[in-house]
């Protein structure tokens, strides 16, 4: 452990630490542009210069120099100050003075560091260079004249996102950052280069010129547009979400965010349900809450519980799902389901429906088998973590299902469930790879268990996990990759059919046949609405998607940015989202709507406040007590024996950019769909 002295303070650091990291450990701030702790070291901005002795009598780039025993490091000597001023003056030579019209203003590293470390005037009287803007696609706006060539975006695309589409062409003063000629970025993580860019060269296209960072109210929250549960910060002005940024969480999203989670927020402003509607002679008309509740109550009166059904959608929060479950229990209806996709999962064994390895745990695995999933589109952040592990080497990946570009090398083992059996019986070469692995992991797609033979596929995947030692004392390598943020929470709360109850397919069939008289849809839009027959449909949700169009009564709920709510991500991690602003118009928090309705029918639910709902959540399932934590799930028998068909696994997400009512209403996502394409990278702006 080398000892070094930073500004007179001696500290001991791990071998291989860079001088910059040592200075940070000593509590000294080192300015930098190109250095980023999650990217490779470039050492090209020269802003991190410090004085090091013994060594050459000149400033040293601290980001690229490892510490050595007995080094004396000075971060505030006259030499360092002069060097920083010089670098800053050089950087500003070609940087335009357009801060007043630059979106980065107020959160710009260059601005801040020029203020703190820069020279107070410029001696450069010549013309500044101008660079033609590049087309990075529908999400990233470019102003390449502002670029200072730190190459963070190039390194991010190459290393983290795994798409070699950005590069630096030319050299010296003619150097330019550009995408492959005539193409736009096709990464699902492209928005992160906006955060990485230390200047205003890469900014958010949808956010362009709409707000200044200091006028936004910042709320720390949780993303729900996939099941990763990325930690986000919602920036709002009044009752409008202006942008969504990632928040650091090493266990989940590190500091990245997928493009859908980052840019679909404009869908929150369109097609919103902000008033109560009831259907009169075929047409929806505005109504009051009382009228709507009375209308539903009239319909329920005299209806046997077996003829009532409820379906929770993919974006539902745990509080409202609990209230829905309790309401259905009060109505003596066994027909409750949270599995819109028809997944053959039940809440019995928690290990069967969560990502047991945990996202951070992926880095400890030494082989992976992906079954019927495309993590790149179903959970882009998790895919980035798998790639991160793959880059470290010694991580063979096998895929059963549709071949896709996952950004890492993956061996295609087969198309359908038969390959699972082959693996268990050792008939496949990849069995040796899994055999040799100490900590193998299996990622089973939620689409693979939504097939008619899903239960058998689940059992077969469990057999593979057990056969190859993926589950042992300190390691659980069995993972179900969910893609709906409500699914784990719904299963934890037991939103599955009770005794003799119907699942989603049964409810739809029952409604079509007239056996089901009333269907309560809690944000459920992904079921065949045309098949609901003459059933009375209550749609509770925030978007006027297909559910609201079919509904007889529309109850306006709150979107994820408008309510304090609990979500459980695919890892089984309970997280709390916070409201960035109040629900729109007449809309209310969803649990409160269900609670209010319960009073109308005289079956008042036993909670009045959010705290009481949350207390009941913990009563319903103790995992809800461990907010932000992971409760390891005990390994038990699950899955159902049975024959599996020969049908190949299919990619359940056709279009990464549009998977839920919010992203379907988003203009930015529509543009991505059009320009980048559902097929990912299939097209571009050639020419």
């Amino acid at each position, binding site marked *: 452990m080398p000892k070094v002295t930073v500004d007179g303070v001696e500290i001991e650091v791990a071998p291989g630490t860079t001088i910059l990291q040592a200075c940070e450990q000593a509590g000294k701030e080192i300015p930098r542009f190109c250095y980023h702790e999650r990217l490779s070291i470039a050492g090209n901005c020269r802003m991190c210069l410090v004085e090091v002795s013994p060594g050459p009598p000149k400033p040293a780039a601290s980001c690229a120099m490892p510490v050595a025993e007995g080094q004396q490091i000075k971060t505030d000597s006259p030499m360092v100050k002069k060097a920083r001023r010089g670098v800053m003056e050089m950087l500003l030579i070609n940087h335009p003075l357009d801060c007043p019209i630059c979106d980065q203003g107020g959160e710009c590293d260059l601005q801040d560091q020029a203020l703190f470390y820069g020279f107070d005037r410029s001696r450069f009287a010549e013309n500044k260079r101008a660079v033609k803007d590049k087309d990075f696609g529908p999400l990233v706006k470019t102003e390449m004249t502002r670029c200072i060539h730190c190459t963070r975006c190039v390194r991010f695309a190459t290393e983290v996102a795994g798409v*070699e*589409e950005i590069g630096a062409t030319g050299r010296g003063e003619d150097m330019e950052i550009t995408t492959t*000629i005539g193409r736009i970025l096709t990464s699902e993580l492209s928005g992160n280069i906006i955060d990485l860019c230390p200047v205003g060269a890469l900014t958010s296209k949808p956010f362009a010129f709409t707000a200044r960072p200091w006028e936004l109210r910042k709320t720390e929250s949780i993303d729900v547009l996939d099941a990763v549960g990325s930690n986000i910060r919602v920036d709002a002005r009044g009752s409008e979400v202006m942008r969504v940024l990632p928040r650091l969480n090493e266990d989940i999203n590190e500091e990245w965010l997928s493009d859908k989670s980052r840019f679909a927020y404009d869908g929150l402003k369109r097609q919103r349900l902000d008033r109560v509607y009831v259907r009169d002679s075929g047409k929806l008309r505005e109504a009051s809450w009382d009228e709507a509740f009375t209308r539903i109550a009239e319909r329920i009166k005299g209806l046997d519980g077996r003829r009532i059904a409820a379906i929770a959608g993919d974006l539902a929060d745990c509080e409202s799902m609990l209230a829905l479950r309790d309401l259905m229990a009060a109505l003596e209806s066994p027909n409750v389901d949270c599995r819109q996709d028809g997944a053959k999962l039940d809440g019995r064994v928690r290990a069967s429906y969560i990502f047991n390895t945990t996202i951070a745990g992926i880095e400890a695995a030494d082989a992976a088998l992906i079954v019927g999933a495309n993590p790149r589109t179903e959970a882009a952040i998790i895919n980035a973590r798998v790639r991160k592990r793959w880059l470290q080497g010694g991580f063979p990946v096998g895929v059963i299902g549709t071949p896709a570009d996952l950004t890492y090398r993956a061996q295609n083992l087969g198309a359908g469930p038969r390959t699972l059996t082959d693996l268990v019986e050792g008939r496949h070469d990849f069995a040796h790879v899994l055999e040799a692995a100490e900590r193998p992991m299996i990622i089973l797609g939620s689409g693979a268990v939504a097939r008619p033979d899903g239960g058998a596929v689940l059992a077969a995947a469990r057999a593979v996990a057990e056969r190859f030692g993926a589950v042992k004392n300190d390691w659980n390598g069995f993972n179900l990759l969910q893609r709906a943020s409500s699914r784990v929470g719904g299963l934890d709360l037991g939103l599955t059919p009770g005794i003799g109850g119907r699942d989603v397919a049964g409810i739809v069939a029952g409604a079509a046949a007239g056996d089901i008289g009333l269907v309560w849809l809690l944000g459920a839009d992904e079921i065949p609405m045309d098949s609901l027959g003459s059933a009375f449909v209550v749609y509770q949700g925030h978007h006027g998607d297909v559910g609201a169009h079919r509904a007889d009564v529309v109850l306006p709920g709150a979107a994820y940015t408008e309510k304090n709510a609990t979500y459980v991500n695919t890892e089984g991690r309970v997280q709390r989202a916070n409201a960035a602003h109040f629900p729109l118009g007449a809309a209310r928090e969803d649990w409160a709507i269900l609670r209010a309705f319960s009073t109308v029918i005289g079956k008042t639910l036993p909670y009045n406040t959010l705290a009481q709902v949350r207390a009941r959540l913990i009563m319903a399932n103790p995992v809800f007590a461990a907010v932000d934590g992971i409760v390891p799930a005990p390994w038990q028998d699950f899955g159902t024996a049975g024959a599996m068909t020969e049908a190949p696994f299919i990619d359940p997400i056709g279009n990464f950019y549009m998977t839920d009512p919010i992203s379907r209403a988003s203009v930015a996502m529509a543009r991505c769909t059009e320009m980048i394409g559902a097929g990912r990278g299939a097209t571009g702006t050639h020419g």
Partner: protein
Amino acid sequence: MSAAIQPETFAFTPENSAAVEAIVRKYPPGRQRSAVIPLLDLAQRQNGGWLPRAAVRHVAEMLDMAEIRAWEVATFYTMFNLEPHGRACVEVCTTTPCWLRGSDAVVAALEDELGIRLGGTTADGAVGLREVECLGACVHAPMLQIGDDYYEDLSPEDARAIARDLLAGRAPKPGSRIGRPGAAPASGPKVLMEKKA
């Protein structure tokens, strides 16, 4: 870089394809992208001295590397010409040693004789004239380069003669115009006399 002159596709000739294989074989398996510079050079030679986008793409595909990576290499080195510049391209050095020895007069003579300015190409596309930085032949300054050949110790008259040859479609004779061998002083070798063969 107008799109009009960019060919849609590029492919190596059979002879060059053999050369490509020989070049790629020099590098260990999995490291074949080290061959990117020689391959781009080969493509440029095959394509009459300039490197179209399609050729860069083709080379990248052959070496299993991202197109942008090959494009970075092609744009970094000034010896790769990304647009056509005349069948014979006269590259005159004007860096300090050549300039001290009269490169301005050489450039003026060439511009006058060819009827074009630095950076231009004659109307028939036969000859292009470009200014370049030091080509490492300072001892024989002033000098210029055409293709792979150096023309050294130039007087303005020598430059005119070279220009006339090019316009007439003749190949000028490369080397020193005052006939001095190697890097010897202009007045003849002064040292290592005993080694004379």
